[in-house]
């Protein structure tokens, strides 16, 4: 894939950025991508609020801030500028901030499992990502589109890229680590297999 194409695709294919993009530029012929999993709204009172992946992005975060006024059409294949831009964009995504308003809330969210610690009792740690293959096959999702899940009881019987519902309180560990605030963490009260709602 050429640098320009990958830059454009990286721009357009991100489900997070698509709504922002549509607002900012509304390019013709570019379908606004939606996450493949649709959350079901209207929870029962007292139950965790079901949220969508878009809500994890702070509403005022504009990843295009540094890229305004750039005409991607003028960039040529193999243009070192394109490669540099891609790198810059990658850095912006890696440092994507979290939505502080969500922190502390008890939420329910669906996603795909990327196992981290698999023991005989089941999964003790995994990452939840919004789309299938959010791994090596495509550029990794931005930092605020990955949730580090620590189930309270090990989740048994799940494998890579199984779809699950998780619920629990969102926190953001401020460790000495990478990038100050480092994405979301949920100590999940429940991890259940995702099932399409039958109508």
């Amino acid at each position, binding site marked *: 894939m050429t640098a320009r194409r990958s830059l454009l695709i990286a721009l357009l294919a991100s489900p997070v950025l698509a709504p922002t993009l549509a607002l900012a530029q509304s390019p013709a012929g570019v379908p606004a991508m939606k996450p493949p999993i649709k959350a079901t709204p209207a929870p029962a009172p007292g139950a965790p609020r079901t949220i969508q992946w878009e809500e994890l992005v702070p509403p005022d975060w504009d990843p295009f801030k540094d890229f305004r006024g750039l005409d991607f059409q003028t960039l040529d294949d193999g243009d070192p500028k394109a490669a540099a831009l891609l790198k810059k964009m990658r850095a912006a995504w890696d440092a994507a901030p979290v939505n502080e308003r969500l922190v502390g809330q008890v939420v329910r969210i669906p996603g795909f499992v*990327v196992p981290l610690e698999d023991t005989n009792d089941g999964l003790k740690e995994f990452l939840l990502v919004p789309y299938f293959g959010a791994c090596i096959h495509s550029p990794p999702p931005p930092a605020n589109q990955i949730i580090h899940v620590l189930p309270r009881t090990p989740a048994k019987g799940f494998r890579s890229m199984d779809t699950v519902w998780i619920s629990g309180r969102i926190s953001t560990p401020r460790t000495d680590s990478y990038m100050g605030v*480092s994405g979301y963490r949920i100590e999940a009260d429940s991890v259940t297999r995702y099932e399409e709602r039958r109508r």
Partner: protein
Amino acid sequence: MKALLAIAWASALNRRGTLALVVAGIALATALLLGLERLRTDIRAGFSQSVSGTDLVVGARTSPIQLMLYAVFRVGGATNNVSMDSIRAVEAHRAVAWVVPLSLGDSHRGRPVLGTTTAYFERFRWGDRQPLAFSAGRPFAGTLDGLYEAVIGAEVAETLGYAPGARITLTHGGGEVLGVEHADKPFTVVGVLARTGTPVDRTVHVSLEALEAIHLDWAGGAPIPGMAIPAEAARKFDLTPKQATAALVGLKNRVAVFNVQRFVAEYEGEALLAVLPAVALDELWQVIGPAEQGLLAISGLVAVVSLASLVAVVLAGLNERRRELAVLRAVGAGPRHVLLLLAAEGVLVTLAGVLLGAALAAALVLGAGPLLQAEFGITLSRAAPTATQWALAGAVVAAGMLASLVPGWRAYRLSLADGLSPRT
């Protein structure tokens, strides 16, 4: 009912030869089913036990499964080595907390030799984040003075009878008998690791520098004639490791795992691969899952065949038992009792077979367990049967009950007169 069972038992005893064969058949089929299931669960458990707390395994670009198999389970071979420069570049990534390089390729009496750093003993985790513990001795020093020091796994110590202080020589490559020995540079065992039930148990650990030292006077894959460097002189050479086979990587924050993975994949100096251990293992199960199921299906078929032979034997026996059954009918047994009698016989035979099979499977686990552990690093647990094992045994018993209804039904239909006046 009790009387009926007594009669069934006495009658079966009379035909013990054929029935014993049927019991043996069912026992073997059950042992096969239960043994396979035990092997399947324990291999999976063993693999997922083998690495913990490691976020990425980095190696030369190959299949993720192959990298995992080689770097963590010491199965198969590496396609290529990784230069230490690349490993240091990964270590310098701001999200990376620690890196433990691994260098494989040599062996000691069939056991893999792992070259690594002292960080291995601090960072490596198995099972549920359990650190390595020493049952005797200490880690190798990792300095020039302690160059020829080795730390051995529990299984190596046990089967080869080594204790701290033992002198061992390493073999170039994997051969057990014909391998080329690094006999001029013997190692001293300084530590023995506590048993983990993982491939660590059958590994000999030495420092990366020691591996450089024993290969100093080698070129092009063979010792250079007339250029032997004595063990002591080797210390004067530059022993900085230049390459390794793979590296275990731990992150400061696990959310950054995709970024580091991408960084490794796009590393410009060398074609590298980084895998998430648990994801690679899932891929492995996806690959071998159908084969496992095929094996289980075949052993299920074996069980069906042995149950079919039960039906055949009892049915064939019916003919010679016409008189016996007729006599029972004549003294007052109803057709119902005859049905029960034959069904009870079938159930008893199946139960005996299943019990014997379970005992056989348990004996196999006890008998072959140490061998499997020594040769392949697979630990068979001697725990109670798993849920699936109970289900399998139950299925065999249930199928045996159903199958024994067939001859029972046939005897039920035979008239009294038919038995009393056989046309023979």
